[in-house]
């Protein structure tokens, strides 16, 4: 198991205890409410809404870095455990059944989307950083397009110079037929999860295959091309990894706000028709 993934074991015991106690308390309270014929769904709904509101405050903390509001890492730990707790409360609230009403289904779907994107992001944040570290030189995400262009320019200059020097078209043909497309290629959205690097291996195999046609002077250029291909590989890994580490938040955060909005409407309707004073 990847060491970086083994974060559960690193979490302080008190967080486990707090989360466990909260879960027991919520389940116990739910049973008591049901046994005493109280409106358990209203209570669990209220708790769930409060939890989601609290979870959303983490984003607010990020907007106020100048205030001593505890470390963001503490907020994240609480966010993760409160997130798991909210899932339990959601299941209690829905009595382990998928809701029937349209609005309820919408709220449920948005909740699932928010929770699933959160779990996915949490997993990514532990899976991808070590992979990015091992792939090669760390690159700033915003500078990747600049590096991409620079690699292409360097490769073109190298190939042109090789052609001029040796009057052989082997490397030029290789560039036009295969390498140019490889350099243009953008990694797929979920490629960091797939691993493999099939395109990279294919282009390396093709370069190796043309070695037999190379002029002796071209061999050093081919070796340099290999380095640039490796550089492009690292560039793709860094780019795709960092892109995915950013993009999941573009699902998680809007979904959270949508959940707060739909949850408020759902809660208002539920209260209105519950007969509660």
């Amino acid at each position: 198991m990847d060491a970086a993934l083994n974060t559960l074991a690193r979490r302080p015991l008190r967080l486990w205890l707090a989360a466990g106690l909260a879960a027991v308390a919520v389940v116990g309270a739910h049973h008591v409410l049901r046994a005493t014929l109280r409106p358990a769904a209203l209570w669990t709904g209220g708790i769930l809404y409060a939890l989601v509101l609290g979870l959303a405050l983490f984003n607010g903390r990020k907007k106020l870095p100048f205030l001593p509001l505890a470390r963001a890492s503490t907020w994240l730990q609480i966010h993760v455990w409160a997130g798991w707790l909210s899932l339990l409360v959601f299941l209690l609230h829905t009595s382990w059944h998928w809701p029937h009403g349209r609005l309820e289904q919408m709220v449920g779907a948005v909740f699932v989307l928010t929770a699933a994107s959160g779990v996915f992001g949490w997993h990514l944040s532990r899976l991808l950083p070590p992979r990015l570290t091992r792939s090669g030189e760390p690159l700033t995400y915003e500078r990747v397009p600049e590096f991409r262009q620079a690699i292409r320019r360097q490769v073109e200059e190298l190939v042109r110079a090789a052609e001029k020097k040796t009057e052989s078209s082997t490397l030029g043909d290789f560039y036009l037929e295969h390498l140019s497309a490889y350099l243009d290629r953008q990694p797929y959205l979920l490629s960091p999860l797939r691993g493999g690097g099939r395109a990279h291996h294919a282009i390396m195999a093709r370069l190796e295959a043309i070695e037999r046609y190379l002029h002796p002077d071209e061999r050093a250029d081919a070796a340099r091309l290999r380095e640039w291909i490796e550089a492009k590989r690292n560039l793709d890994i860094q780019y795709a990894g960092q892109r995915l580490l950013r993009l999941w938040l573009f699902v998680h955060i809007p979904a959270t706000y949508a959940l707060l909005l739909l949850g408020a409407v759902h809660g208002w309707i539920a209260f209105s028709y519950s007969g509660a004073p």
Partner: protein
Amino acid sequence: MARALASLSRSPLLATAGEQAGGLRIPRPQRWSVPFADEMSDEQVDALLARPPFSLIDASRFPPRLPLRGVLKNDTRLRLFQTGDIVVREGDYGNSAFIILSGSVQVALDSLPARLLGRRTSEKKTWWSSFSQLWTNHRESEVRSLATDTLELALRARRSSDSHPHVFLQDLPRVMPAYKTVQLEAGEVFGEIAALGRTPRTSTVIADGNTELLEIRWQGLRELRLFAPQWKEHIDRLFRERALLSHLHETPLLSFLDEAALNQVAAQTQFETYGHFDWTASFQNLAGSSAQERVLKEPVIAREGDYPNSLILLRTGFARLSQTYNRGERTLSYLGKGRCFGLEEILLSRQAAAAVPFRYSLRALGYVDVLVIPATVFESIVLPTLTPERLKALGLGLGGDAPARTSLPEPDKLDPALLEFLVENRFINGSATMLIDVDRCTRCDDCVRACAATHDGNPRFIRQGPVVNHLMVANACMHCFDPVCMIGCPTGAISRDSFEGQIVINDGTCIGCGTCASSCPYHNIHLVPVRDATGAMVVDEASQAPIVKATKCDLCIDQLGGPACVRACPHDAMVRADMRDVDFLSAWMQR
């Protein structure tokens, strides 16, 4: 792959002009290629040679490549000051000493208030002022309230006849009587402690009337001490009188000596310096060398296998402790201020009743200033006071055959690759080095945004830097123990905060000359164009060029809760580490 990416990072446009043309050709720089000042004329040098103390120096002792005339011509400059001009400020780092040629100066024995010296006074924001940054932060970055800044500059700095800007104390007769001062007259020397000892100036010195001073840079002082014995004697005597005893007093190993014994030790102690005072250039020149070449170019303070004829106390700077390993040098540790070298060999020699040679080499990293106590003096005066219990209490002493903790700070605690990396890049100089665990960092840039939000909309660091294992040393001011960036600041705008020790820049007195930025060996200081309250660029009225200010991480000195970058990291991936604290470093790496 590594080569390709590295070259890409070095220059987005990749090959440099020098590489394409087969390298830039320039004459090899010489010792005096860049003199201290251009304005020293032959007539002025003649006049200096004709008056004491230079007329008393035997010029024939100087080698032909370093004549006395050359030293005076290239390593000195004449400075003219008016009443109230601050010559040196307490706390500033200086690379020169002064001889009073005419007039006099007042040395403030008490510390003058920071504000009086043009220093930034650090005050924490209140909760309200912190919170109000939410709407008071300007939309444009680097907006300054220039009304105050320019006013302060106009009041506090003036161009003098010798073309160096002076900061002056207003109303000297009213201010100074409140403080204890001492007057120095023509012929006297000051500033030698900071110049030779790589320590901050110990006092503020203010011109008292029209005063002419000869400023001698550190290199010139070194030559004078080398080739003019009476000069060396004079400077060393001043050093002994003013600094040596207090340093020996602070050395735990000598804390059991009475005053008379300590004076005896002081009388025999030699003061030595290694490396370049302003070591940025020499460090950067090593960039293309291999790891082994770098080690071999470092000045040797003590060599493995040599007879241990002295105990070496590190007074300032850092030194590499290494041992020969097959055909290379293996770094075992790094020693900083207050550490000693050679004690275990002296103790072992005594135990074995035979000389045990140095088992390690000690090499200067940057500029190192050491005190050398002869082994005979140490054995006869100090050793009798060091009982096994006292040695144990100091964390020193011998454990069986293996001496422990006299020089080595638990070498096994740090991974050897990490240790070599930290020493080679001299990151050990940091008191608050920004370290990022890249196995945890999700590259979310929350740290960068937090820094920008707390610093005029512009982050004070770059989340990039060299990586070893899973540790990145980011481009952020490390608040160095040996802050070379402070050398040469003409207005003293960059200084160490007197309360918490951070290196800070006073925006009001920074003139944007870039001296600090080019002196920082780690490229962690940047010049940024500033804007006025309307968001428009501020430009120089004469040249229309943008007004720039030096900026760097200030460790959120005025923010509640400490560095915003660390607090903003959701994954506990960042820390500001004191690189002397090996225990912490090791524990943090192994979380």
